[in-house]
């Protein structure tokens, strides 16, 4: 039997990537119109009412649009970072937080929450969490490369898990020096919050995410080959060390930027890549863009649910992603292999 293939299997997945992109755009455009307060499009874009007096426009442009954009940025970055870390560690259960990025960010945020008022050097929570994330990345990188050339995924995992534990201990120490209000704020930060109210956090995270994504663009095919194993990828001409370095630094940068905007929102980085793989297969040239777009759409919708489902009370968005993601995660573990 002879089969004649005329098109790469890649092309079959392209419509789905396009669909994910359309879904993301639709979600970002629709989300600002949906919320606990009804607003009218005619009022929002009314040329006769000054923006300063236009409540509908302010709800649209100050309260909801930055939120939708932040959700898209954070969701896309976390989903893409999840794909990259899973590929780098050759472990489908890896998440953007496996290598200690979120623990570093949490420690930074916690320091800012606890000492920020009395010691302004620590700066804003956003800046502090980003700094913490980058410190964690740096330490893990040093640990993983100290003994050998290249990044062994085992050593990376070990370094990441160790750092996670160490930073968690430091967090507890900081917590012990905090009072109730600060402990509560810290806990609330851990649950994620996308009500950014201004475009500034988005704009400051955007360059970092852009740098990370530029790196990811080169990674799609090397990640495919890494799935065969590092040696096998190397003998097929992949520069393993460089691919691993880009994956680790890019994934960490995207994660750190995302966490600085919305806190360590869970599950996006793991369930989105898995869902996408169920549909498009394993090719990272499809999985990476499709996850980015779908992750963005997913978090926009989750945030919409978080702010509307029991309005006027808001659920933390991390709770929504966990409620959706937890059962799905179990289903993946138990049902699918």
């Amino acid at each position, binding site marked *: 039997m002879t*089969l004649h293939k005329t098109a*790469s*299997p890649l092309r079959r997945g392209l419509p789905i990537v396009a669909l994910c992109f359309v879904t993301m755009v639709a979600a970002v455009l629709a989300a600002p119109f949906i919320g606990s307060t009804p607003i009218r499009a005619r009022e929002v874009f009314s040329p006769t009412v000054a923006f300063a007096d236009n409540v509908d426009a302010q709800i649209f442009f100050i309260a909801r649009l930055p939120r939708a954009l932040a959700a898209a940025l954070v969701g896309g970055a976390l989903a893409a970072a999840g794909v990259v870390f899973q590929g780098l560690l050759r472990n489908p259960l890896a998440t953007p937080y496996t290598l200690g990025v979120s623990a570093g960010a949490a420690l930074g945020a916690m320091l800012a929450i606890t000492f920020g008022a009395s010691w302004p050097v620590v700066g804003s929570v956003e800046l502090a969490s980003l700094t913490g994330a980058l410190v964690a990345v740096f330490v893990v990188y040093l640990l993983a490369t100290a003994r050998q050339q290249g990044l062994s995924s085992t050593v990376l995992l070990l370094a990441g898990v160790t750092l996670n534990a160490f930073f968690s201990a430091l967090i507890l120490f900081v917590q012990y020096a905090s009072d109730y209000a600060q402990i509560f704020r810290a806990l609330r930060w851990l649950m994620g919050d996308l009500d950014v109210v201004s475009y500034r956090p988005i704009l400051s995270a955007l360059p970092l995410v852009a740098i990370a994504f530029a790196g990811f663009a080169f990674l799609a*095919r090397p990640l*495919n080959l890494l*799935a065969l194993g590092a*040696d096998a990828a190397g003998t097929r001409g992949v520069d393993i060390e460089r691919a691993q370095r880009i994956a680790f630094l890019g994934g960490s940068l995207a994660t750190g930027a995302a966490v600085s905007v919305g806190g360590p929102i869970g599950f996006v980085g793991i369930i989105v890549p898995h869902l996408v793989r169920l549909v498009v*297969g394993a090719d990272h040239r499809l999985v990476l863009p499709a996850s980015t777009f779908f992750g963005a759409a997913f978090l926009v919708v989750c945030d919409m649910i978080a702010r509307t489902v029991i309005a006027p009370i808001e659920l933390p968005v991390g709770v929504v992603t966990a409620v959706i993601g937890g059962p799905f995660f179990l289903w993946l573990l138990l049902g699918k292999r």
Partner: protein
Amino acid sequence: MLLEAADLVFAYPGGPQILEGVSFGVADGALVGVLGPNGSGKTTLLHLIARSLRPTSGHVRLGGADVSSLPRRLLARRLAVVPQETVLAFDYSVLEIVLMGRYPHLGVFEVEGPGDLSAAMTALESTGTAQLADRPFRTLSGGEKQRVMIASALAQLDDSAVGTTTDDAAPLLLLDEPTASLDLRYQLEVASLLRRLHDRRHVTILLTTHDLRFAASVCTRVILLSKGHVIAEGPPTEVLTPSRVGELYEIDPEMASGVISAEIRGWT
């Protein structure tokens, strides 16, 4: 000589020497088996040839050029490795796995074209796995997996799509213990595939194995490796004498003689 290994020495930093000066050559079109017991340094030798490891001293030359001086992608177009066992991190289809062999032929953002697809399909057909193209790799049997990985390696070495003939250096296929994890039926399957590739397509093959019977049945030459040294080299019928096999596996020559007559002579 297509491949020359010159006085290869290797030790992991702080570890004992695994190879203690190994030299041999592989002629164009040969099917050579590196035979030795577990721990003799076979797999390390393969890693050194494929540049997955750097030798402590000595050289590996492919078509006259030192492999350490060849650009990564050029080396990958001339030399492909089939690992002992492949466990995928994600669920790729057979065709996707074979197309991964085209990596060194494509630019960074280039998508596989018709030439790459035809190289993949040719490789699948010559390994008898064309009908598996759309199957998930994970669902294949051990023998099928091994044949698909050989197809992926063949697709990697296929330069016909680019139109440049490889007169400067013929491609070399390396296999690490191709039958170690297979039962008899699949061993025979892989053995006949390798012979077919050698006889009909003149692919140069270097494989490692600890299986006397397999080496004797498929290889045109064998290299006996023991404790980091080459102890003999030549056609299997000449090299595999009871005394050498006894030395190689540290067994009584009498017993080795029995093994050889029962296992090897019967095959060849």
